[in-house]
């Protein structure tokens, strides 16, 4: 019970000699206060611009409370099997979109990689077009495709594929740029041509990373596929927006629960496949992971 073994005089002395250890300087305090005031002013300005009067918020909360109460108990209505079919359609859209994107992004990734295509003049427009495909959201593409090919899941599949081509090509190109040069050199030393160098020097190194990326995209696409139906591009989203517009909240709740469960299931399957992949892949993957962990630990 010697909590106050250090006498107060000593503490006061320490306080004088190391003021920064005990309190912030006035300048630091002023900066913090200024940031805080700035953020509060920004929030007030935004709320004013968003037209969020207290009355509107109050009425909105009132209505929202009524909606929240109407969500329970969730019920499928009389369309349970329609909803199941729409959910399967959603997963199918995500799967096909990812598959098509992978097939197209595989060669594009090589074209965008610095160590395969040496000419920057040729590589630059390819990388920028990936950025463009990525920059436009899948929902925008879906709306465009609905105009072009009509309502239905085809538009959704194309929308997912388009965004994914941009994302996967970029990820593939980055994976290819990070390969170990020595293996490519080794293959070249045996007299291999360009195609053989790619096949035996690069592909074995990048394939596990690529498959892992594709699985990850499949997960993320299942999430995006659930909403494409809002603009008429197939899947469960159509039913969801339909029920919300008709204010059938108990059915809305049922569909949302369905989405959450299916997304969790797909996440689980993809996690399992990915860990299988790491186990099946050579110790290279493990080695890389240990290396990264050590690097992280060192930082």
């Amino acid at each position, binding site marked *: 019970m010697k909590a106050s073994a250090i006498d107060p005089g000593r503490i006061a002395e320490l306080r004088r000699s190391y003021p920064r250890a005990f309190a912030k300087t006035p300048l630091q305090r002023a900066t913090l206060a200024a940031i805080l005031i700035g953020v509060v002013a920004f929030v007030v300005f*935004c709320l004013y611009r968003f037209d969020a009067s207290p009355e509107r918020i109050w009425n909105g909360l009132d209505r929202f409370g009524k*909606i929240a109460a109407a969500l329970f108990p969730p019920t499928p209505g009389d369309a349970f099997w329609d909803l199941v079919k729409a959910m399967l359609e959603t997963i*199918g859209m995500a799967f*096909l979109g990812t598959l098509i994107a992978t097939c197209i992004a595989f060669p594009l990734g090589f074209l965008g990689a610095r160590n395969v295509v040496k000419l920057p003049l040729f590589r630059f427009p390819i990388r920028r077009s990936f950025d463009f495909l990525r920059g436009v959201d899948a*929902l925008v593409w879906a709306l465009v495709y609905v105009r072009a090919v009509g309502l239905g899941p085809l538009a959704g599949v194309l929308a997912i594929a388009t965004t994914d081509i941009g994302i996967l090509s970029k990820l593939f190109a980055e994976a290819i740029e990070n390969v170990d040069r020595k293996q490519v050199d080794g293959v070249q030393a045996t007299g291999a041509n360009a195609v053989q160098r790619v096949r035996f020097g690069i592909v074995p190194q990048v394939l596990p990373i690529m498959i892992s990326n594709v699985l990850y995209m499949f997960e993320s696409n299942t999430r995006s596929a659930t909403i494409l139906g809002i603009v008429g591009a197939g899947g469960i989203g159509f039913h969801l927006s339909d029920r*919300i517009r008709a204010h059938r909240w108990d059915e809305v709740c049922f569909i949302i629960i369905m989405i959450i469960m299916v997304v969790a299931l797909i996440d689980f399957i993809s996690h399992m496949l990915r860990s299988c992949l790491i186990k099946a892949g050579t110790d290279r993957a493990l080695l890389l992971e240990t290396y990264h962990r050590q690097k992280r630990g060192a930082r």
Partner: protein
Amino acid sequence: MPSQPSVAVARFEEEFARLRRRQRLQLLAFSAIFVIISHAAADVSNFRLDRLIAGLPRIGEYIGKTIPEIRLDTLPGDIAYWYYGFFKWLGLLFDTLLIALMALIFGSLGGFLLCFPASRNLAGNFAIYFVFRRLAEIARTVPEIVYALIFVVAFGIGPFAGFLALTIHTIGAMGKLYAEANENIDERQLEGVRAAGGNWFEVIRFAVLPQVLPNFTTYTLWRLELNIRSAAIVGFVGAGGIGQELYHAISFNYYEDVSAIVLMVVATIMVIDLICEQLRHRLIGKESLQ
């Protein structure tokens, strides 16, 4: 003695052949499963190759229509005609940015409050951890546009609904990421503060925060990019920002407006990406200097 190497070679060949056989069998099995799943997916989503081939030229045609007619001799006039709504769209883009930033501020605040009870090592009690973690996961699994649809009904059309929708989604996403950062901290510092008599809040303040704040900052900056993408589309269902105008342009076939707005959105997203990356690099640089 000359037979020994050949025995070894034969053994190697045998082993190699066995491995090759197994690999081929695995490949065959995986391909079969894959083909079956692809077929089922195509069947259930009504995807047929002939429809795709019939659709492709129409997509080309559509994109062709969105490209404005620009001639070199009348360049300024053509650009002005193409971007006749530039200032209106700029205003809407500004709204989109505000939605994203506001959702980031409130979302990361909410995520910050949520993340401590949602971390296995800080919640103290498994039930608390489980409930808060599931809450965060549910909040982030439901797409923001679904929240937007609901909030548009409750709060009326406009950016306020979009802000609320994005905020809920951001709270979930940040809560989960922050909680994961909390779970990876060094436990010894927690014990140190507890041994000095610190209560739960003091443990968070003096043992957890100093370890996780850099991670939190990186995640938050990274989230800003995602929020801007989402803020640009919540307008599709009437929740404010540039999305509303884009939806209008696509639905009413104002082809050249579509390309003009899409280019503006993509350019904005790219600029924000660059700024965030710079900020991140600067922050990381600062940390490694300390």
